């Protein structure tokens, strides 16, 4: 029982990171039906930015987190403007391949500029371990889960209760009708990329603190897992992405805990396949027939 709770805590921490990333995938997909394969790399840039400002300017965790969110939001919007916007009326596969290209560009660009080696993320928050009912919890884990939950609440407030958030939902369901009420879809799409990328930036700083190490390819596997999380939750659904992220994180830690470390990634893909077979629209997805 103790191990169960122990793994649950570990799974929730990792799951928060996946959830933050999955939100970006799901929001972008919801609005322009693009799987933004470069999303995991924005998370990597967020981690590198945190590394840089903490080492260079000795800022504290809060400043690193917020500045990383701002930088990543700007980067996400820039990528959208330069790479995806010109393809707005092209076939979807074109944008998809472009996204893969952007991903390679960011990974290799960072390796080229800063080296492919793994770096130690500066520990701005001293790690403490304490034991509650025999379960070990670190303050870093609590920080990760708390910050993630706060960001998700903030996102929910923005999407549900602001003019821009409502416009996001309007464009996602009916772009033409949205244009007829005067919404400029370009602004809304740009805003969506900014919002998703900011969450990825936050996730990058949090994972740096948690795992201690960062490298230019660190976004690849978490990016794919977060994408799976978004599909499991029902792609396009915001609560679905959050739930999917936690589920995938928990699944991964449990598979590891029962001694099947080597299969932890495989387990995630098995879940993807099972979900696609039994619940093709995901947990919270609407079962709409897609017009292609």
């Amino acid at each position: 029982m103790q191990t169960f709770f122990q793994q649950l805590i570990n799974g929730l921490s990792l799951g928060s990171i996946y959830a933050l990333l999955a939100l970006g995938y799901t929001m972008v997909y919801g609005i322009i039906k693009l799987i933004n394969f470069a999303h995991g790399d924005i998370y990597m840039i967020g981690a590198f930015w945190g590394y840089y400002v903490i080492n260079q300017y000795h800022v504290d965790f809060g400043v690193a987190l917020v500045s990383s969110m701002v930088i990543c939001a700007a980067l996400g919007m820039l990528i959208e403007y330069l790479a995806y916007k010109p393809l707005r009326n092209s076939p979807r596969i074109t944008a998809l391949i472009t996204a893969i290209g952007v991903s390679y560009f960011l990974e290799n660009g960072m390796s080229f500029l800063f080296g492919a080696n793994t770096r130690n993320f500066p520990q701005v928050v001293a790690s403490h371990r304490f034991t509650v009912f025999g379960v070990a919890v670190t303050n870093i884990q609590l920080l990760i889960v708390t910050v993630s939950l706060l960001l998700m609440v903030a996102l929910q407030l923005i999407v549900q209760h602001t003019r821009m958030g409502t416009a996001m939902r309007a464009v996602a369901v009916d772009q033409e009708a949205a244009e007829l009420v005067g919404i400029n879809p370009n602004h809304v799409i740009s805003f969506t990329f900014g919002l998703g990328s900011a969450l990825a930036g936050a996730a990058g700083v949090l994972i740096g603190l948690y795992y201690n190490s960062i490298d230019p390819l660190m976004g690849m596997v978490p990016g794919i897992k977060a994408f799976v999380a978004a599909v499991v939750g029902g792609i396009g659904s915001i609560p679905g992405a959050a739930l999917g992220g936690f589920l995938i994180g928990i699944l991964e830690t449990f598979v590891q805990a029962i001694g099947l470390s080597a299969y932890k990634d495989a387990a995630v893909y098995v879940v993807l396949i099972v979900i696609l077979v039994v619940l093709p629209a995901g947990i919270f997805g609407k079962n709409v027939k897609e017009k292609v």
Partner: protein
Amino acid sequence: MLNVVGLKVNYGAIQAVQGVDFTVNDGEIVTLIGANGAGKSTILKTISGLLRPSAGTITYNDQNLAKLSPSKIVAAGIAQVPEGRHVFEGLTVTENLRMGAYLSPKTRDEQLAAVYDQFPVLKERRSQDAATLSGGEQQMLAMGRAMMAKPKLLLLDEPSMGLAPIYINKIFDIIKNIHAQGVTVLLIEQNAAQALQVADRGYVLASGQVKMTGTGKALLANDDVRAAYLGG
């Protein structure tokens, strides 16, 4: 107020609108009638800026609309109720209406109260997902949403489509009521008899061209129009 001259619109190789001229004067109700595929919706989408003309001009109070984005066209005072209603599903009735005032957030709440006065049924359903409304209610929501922008010119694309007769009468009453508030109306209908009754003037469209024009009364009395659109 609105002046369309020599308008041509293509979808790729298909010429949907092939040189159409018409005018809407300030304060009028003008109707475009015509069979399926005549090009009516294409004309409205082009006025709203969703499609671009391949030839011709659309002038609205001395502004060339062909150069403006849909959002600028709404800001200039033209709102459209699209064919098939197109309410925002997943958004509540209130959220749908608020989106109608996207460009005028300052007067939004006061306009919302006015629209709820005009459409009490929407007020009753204000927290409901727009997708759960009946067809007639959705039509009212789409009209209320357009009114949220305080338009000077309202474009209506087949507002009575697919509705029961009792609802159709209601919709036409609302159109008269909106017109009485000083809004100029460009109405597209397949329900030609009722459209011509409320309209000051009408244009009969076929295969992307204007075939006939006149006052609502004159067209109603015209034998060719009666034969083709009013069931004899």
